[in-house]
Structures are given as structure tokens and as C-alpha cells.
């Protein structure tokens, strides 16, 4: 027969697992639980970035053995790369794509958002359909535009219809039109993003200032420039910065639409790095390019984040 004390103080045996859970659920420990595996993943991938620097100083080709056996090449890669017209041109192209397509997307998106605000019926129908391009696989968008701009494509048909003559031009072999096709593909896919962001911003604008301005005799033009647009500023900044940073990565559509051609005239930076590294096997040279692009992107990202954070604070403080 058990003694009374034993019955009263009986505690079930605690398994190691339960003790572990109890240990892990203390605040002090718990807050690091997801952080540790994430950091572990980063730690695992980190050496790769050190490797990027190493790769850019050796002379390694994909077809020539392993990279740890390749010879030292000093800064010759950088010298070659920086004087390479192709690389410099591709940087120019990437900036051209980003700084032409994003403003057009913004203007179109703003007009669409304003138009969608005006109408009474079918708003969700329109915005539902407009979203579809954003969900498309970029590769699919790419070859859709190759079909449209091909010699026997609907774009030529449209031009024939408009001009009344038989237009049969291979647009993608043209130095200017190949770039236009790439820009158009981006506009087609991402105007919806601007539209969505600006719609969200427009619905968040309070009615009072607009009504007050109307009573004071402002016309709709003044209201748009003096009230609506300033109030949209945070959303506009965030949308444009995110879109610009995203467009600088462009690769899929360029590869599919023009393949960088004619020649190398429409290559984006990512495309040049890929071609030099994988098609011409000069992976070390493409590592040097990647390093330069890395630092360039860092500068852009810092500027972008600085702009975004300022606007985010404005949103959080309710200034808008």
C-alpha cells in the first residue's frame, strides 16, 4: 500500500521529448527556433558568394575540368569585361528596358485605375481579367510575343490592315523592333501590377478632402493633381521601385523573344552573363560580370529601399 505522501505528490514520468518541447517553448529559446534553420541555409549558401569573387579571378571554362584546378588569371577578366562592348551594351539595354517599360506601365496602370473608378458596373470583372497576365509564366509570355511578331503573325496583319498594303516583316530581326517587342511583353504582363497597386491606393483615399475641394470650386483636373496624386505618392513610389528592381532582372522574355538578337543587340545583362558563361564557356568572365552587376544592383537596391522605407513610414504614421 502506497504512503499518502507518494499518492499526493505523484507526477507522471516526463519523456525526453516533452522536456525538449518545454525547453524549446521558453521565450528565450523559442524566438530562435525558426531563425536557426534559416541562418543555417544562408550559411550553407554563403560560401557560394565568396566563390563568385574567386571565380572572377581564375580562368575557368565549363568544358575544361573542375574550377578548383583552374589557373589564376589576376584581374584580366575584369579588364576584358569592362572593355567588352557587348557587356556595356547589355547594361544599356537593361536600363533601357527598365526605364521605358516601367513609366509606360505606370501611366497605363494609372489611367486604367482611374477609368475603373469611374465606371459603376463590371469593375471586378475587368480587374479579374486584367490580373491574368501577372500569373502567366514569363517563358510563355515570351513565345506568345514571338508568335505575334513573327512574319506571318497578327501584328503584321494589323499593320497590313491599317496601311492597306501587304506588310510582311520579320520584326524580331530588326534592331529597333526586337527591343520594342521585349518592352511590349513587359508592359503587357506588368501593367496589371501597376493597375492593382494604384486601385488599392485609390480606394484608400478618404473622400473628405476631395469633397471639400469640390465645394471650394476646384475642377476635377485640379483635384487630380493637387489631392489624388499626392495622396497616392507612397503607393506610386513602392510600385515603381519594386517594378524597376524586378525589371532589371529580365531574362526569360529576352531569351524567348529575340534570343538576344539580331546579333547581340537586344541582350539584357542577365542574358549576356548567361551566354558568355554557358554558351561560350567563359564562366570566369561571366563571374566578373556578375560581380559588377551584383554591386550595381546593391546600389540600386539601397536607393530603392531608402525611398520605399520613407514612404512606408508615411503609411504607418497615417500621414496619408
Amino acid at each position, binding site marked *: 500500500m502506497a504512503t499518502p505522501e507518494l499518492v499526493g505528490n505523484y507526477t507522471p514520468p516526463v519523456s525526453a521529448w516533452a522536456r525538449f518541447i518545454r525547453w524549446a517553448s521558453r521565450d528565450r529559446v523559442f524566438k530562435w527556433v525558426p531563425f536557426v534553420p534559416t541562418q543555417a541555409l544562408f550559411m550553407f549558401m554563403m560560401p557560394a558568394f565568396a566563390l563568385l569573387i574567386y571565380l572572377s579571378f581564375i580562368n575557368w571554362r565549363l568544358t575544361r575540368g573542375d574550377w578548383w584546378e583552374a589557373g589564376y588569371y589576376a584581374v584580366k577578366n575584369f579588364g576584358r569585361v569592362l572593355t567588352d562592348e557587348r557587356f556595356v551594351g547589355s547594361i544599356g539595354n537593361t536600363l533601357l528596358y527598365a526605364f521605358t517599360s516601367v513609366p509606360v506601365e505606370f501611366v497605363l496602370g494609372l489611367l486604367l485605375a482611374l477609368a475603373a473608378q469611374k465606371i459603376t458596373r463590371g469593375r471586378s470583372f475587368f480587374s479579374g481579367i486584367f490580373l491574368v497576365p501577372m500569373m502567366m509564366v514569363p517563358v510563355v509570355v515570351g513565345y506568345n510575343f514571338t508568335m505575334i511578331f513573327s512574319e*506571318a503573325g497578327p501584328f503584321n496583319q494589323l499593320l497590313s490592315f491599317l496601311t492597306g498594303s501587304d506588310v510582311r516583316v520579320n520584326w524580331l530581326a530588326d534592331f529597333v523592333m526586337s527591343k520594342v517587342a521585349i518592352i511590349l511583353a513587359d508592359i503587357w504582363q506588368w501593367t496589371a501590377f501597376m493597375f492593382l*497597386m494604384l486601385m488599392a491606393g485609390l480606394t484608400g483615399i478618404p473622400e473628405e478632402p476631395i469633397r471639400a475641394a469640390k465645394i471650394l470650386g476646384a475642377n476635377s483636373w485640379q483635384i487630380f493633381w493637387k489631392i489624388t496624386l499626392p495622396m497616392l505618392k507612397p503607393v506610386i513610389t513602392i510600385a515603381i521601385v519594386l517594378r524597376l528592381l524586378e525589371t532589371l*532582372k529580365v531574362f526569360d522574355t529576352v531569351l524567348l523573344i529575340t534570343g538576344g538578337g539580331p546579333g547581340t543587340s537586344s541582350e539584357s545583362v542577365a542574358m549576356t552573363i548567361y551566354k558568355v558563361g554557358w554558351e561560350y564557356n567563359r564562366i570566369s568572365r561571366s563571374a566578373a560580370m556578375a560581380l559588377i552587376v551584383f554591386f550595381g544592383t546593391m546600389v540600386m537596391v539601397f536607393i530603392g529601399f531608402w525611398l520605399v522605407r520613407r514612404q512606408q513610414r508615411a503609411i504607418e504614421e497615417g500621414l496619408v
Partner: protein
Amino acid sequence: MAQAYGMTRSRKSFFAKTSSYMFLLFWLFVTLFPIFWMVSTSFKPPQEWFAWPPIWIPVEPTINNYEEILAIGPGGTGSENTKLAGAQQVLTAILPIRDSLIVAIISSTIAVVLGSFLAYTISRYQTGGKRYPYILLMIRMMPPIVIAVPVLAYFSLPWWRGALHDNYLGLILPYVLITLPYAVWLMLSFMHEIPRELENAARMMGAGRILVMRKVIIPLIRPGLAVTFIFTFILNWSEFLLAYTLAGQKLVTVTVQLSQYEAADVGRLYGPQAAFGTIAIIPLIILGFMIQKHLVTGFSFGMVRK
């Protein structure tokens, strides 16, 4: 006078409304046209691919294109006895779809589990400091080609070459790395909506950490988890560059296979490619409509909300 004023007023708004509708309809046409063209091409027989004037609606509609890509030939390369003139074989869609599903589902699951957990500790304990989310976001802003060059060399080290080079794990790790920022930022915006008092109340009543997680947090963020999963799935499914550079021989994803029809020497196989494209985007469009309301949040990393 007042009446006249009212009339110009209403006429003006009528004009504004009509032009708005016109513009929206115009963009509707622009949006739908490439998709329509692809779907229509996927039903065209070879002689209609390059016809002039272009054929909008297939004269002799056929499902041959779908049959070709959905067949698996010997060695998994695709149908060998193709009916398409000039083509030796048409690449199969089945194996890439399988591989893409494996890679996308596993990496999205890891990213969502890790990301939501991380978002929770970031929002409650500021784990990693105030700048940590921004550091994460910076990874996402890197062009993938900058990741691809060194990672290719890194993964070809003899210690793990077998597991990482041109293999599932070798794609899953970078995919988790680049979708984790999305997952964290999206989940952060969902986490901020859960009142802290709710948790504290449950803790006060004696519920343990696990119980609070199970009964309070997870039910409240379940929609957020679903949205984040779908979102990262869409990103992973559409990812092309890393799949093209880090894999591509043994492990071929949908996007890589799609680009192969273009490079084929046997001429452009518009029909099968369009059929494959149609198959590849249908799940994304369905998933996208499911999270339609959250797309703004998703694409803006939760910075802008509806």
C-alpha cells in the same frame, strides 16, 4: 440655368463613363489577345501555324498537339512516331510537369513553414533585429543570374555533386532561398493583424506555447498560409533562369522544356508549344483567381494592402 448646369454636368459624366468603358475594353482586348492566340494555336494543325493571312480560329481544329506532348516515348524524351511533318520527335510535357510539381511543392512548403514561423518570431520578438526583413528582401532583389554563376560552381564540389548538381535538392535550396523573403514579408503582414492580447489572454489562462500556436495562431493565419503557399508556388512554377542553368539535363522543369521547342533545329513547333503553354498556365490562373484579393499584398511584399 440650374437645369442647364445639371445637364452639362451629367453629359460630362456620361462622356467620362463611356470613355472609361472604351479604354477598359481596349485593355481587355489587349490582355486577352495573346492568350487567345496561344489557345487557338494549340488547336491548329501544322499547315495553319505559318499561314498568311494568319488564321484566328483554326479551320481544321485538332487535338493532335496535345496528344503529341502528352505522350512519353522511350527514354522519356517524347513521342517518337510523331505525326508532325519534319519533326523527328516532340518533347514530352509529362516528365517536366512531374519534376516541376515536385520541386515547386517541396520548396514552397519549406518556404511557407519556415517563413511563417520566422514572421511570427520577427513580429513578436524582433528576432534578428529591425533590419532583418530588409536583409531578407535584398536576397530577392538580386538578379538570379548573380546567384546562378557561383552556385553552379559551388554545387559541383565533389562532396555533394551527386545530390545537388542537376538534381531536385539542388533546385529546391535556391528556390527556398529566393522565395523565403516573399513568404516572410507576406506572413508578416498577416501576423500584424493578429491582436497580441488574444495570445496573452490564452497564455494567462494557462495555455502552453504549443497550445497557443495550435489553437490561436494557426487558425487565425490559415488563410494567410494558403495565400503564401499559392503565391510561392506560382513563383517557383514560373522560375526559369535557375532551372535552366543549375539543372536542365536530367532534371527538366516545365519552363525549361517550354523553351526547348524554340531552340529545336527541326523548325518552330508552334502547335505543341502552345498546347504545352496552355497546360502550364491553367493551374496558375486557377490558383491566381483563388488568391485574387491578396495579389496586391503578395506582389508588393505586403507593403500595400487593399
